[in-house]
């Protein structure tokens, strides 16, 4: 159980695919694990009023986000039988096609990893004080809103 210490979740810039691969590799020594579930958020080239998004700049209320994330981690460890849980979110600029969110759960049987991962993603998006500013090709920007998030789900 890694649930007791407050873990850093923020990384500067994009999360690299190699980092994800390395994180997976570290679990080969944990031989009671039968299932891993991974969610990755990737920055999309949305078109908004004829302008194309080329990057998102993320900012956060870091101290509150880390406390909130700790609370979410604890609750998820208590609710699901998870062996491991790893969460990373970008701060700063992440270009289109790059990864900004990495949620990774592991468990003996698949149900816990899958459901735990899904719940973490939902709670992170809803409850953690992070903001994304969509940057357009002409250098104009707009703050992302949660408005179409509810439509997504």
């Amino acid at each position, binding site marked *: 159980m890694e649930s007791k210490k407050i873990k850093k979740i923020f990384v500067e810039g994009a999360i690299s695919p190699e980092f994800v691969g390395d994180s997976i590799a570290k679990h080969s020594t944990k031989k009671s694990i039968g299932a891993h579930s991974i969610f990755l958020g990737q920055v999309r080239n949305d078109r908004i009023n004829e302008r194309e998004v080329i990057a998102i700049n993320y900012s*956060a*209320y870091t*101290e509150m986000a880390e406390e909130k994330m700790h609370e979410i981690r604890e609750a998820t460890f208590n609710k699901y039988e998870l062996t491991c849980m790893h969460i990373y979110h970008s701060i700063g600029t992440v270009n289109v096609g790059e990864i900004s*969110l990495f949620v990774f759960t592991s468990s003996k049987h698949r149900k816990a990893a899958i459901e735990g991962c899904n719940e973490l993603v939902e709670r992170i998006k809803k*409850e953690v004080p*992070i903001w*994304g*500013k969509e940057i357009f090709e002409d250098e104009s920007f707009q*703050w992302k809103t949660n408005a179409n*998030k509810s439509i997504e789900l």
Partner: protein
Amino acid sequence: MEIKIIAFGQIADIIGNSIMSINEIKDTEELRKKLSNAFPQLNEISYGIAINKKNINKNTEINMGDIVALLPPFSGG
């Protein structure tokens, strides 16, 4: 009494800087009113307030030394 206000996202854009101090605010309702008068653009944004990193869901007293955060809708992920 002086309280520390920190603003994020589009609210930081409107208020102009991300840390400011305000004198003599008794509770969060009064803070919302004062901010709304000073920055009419805030009326178009539904924002939350956290005191000392805890979300506030109803009108709450503000005490000296509190850190008050103005939180527009989250859009992480």
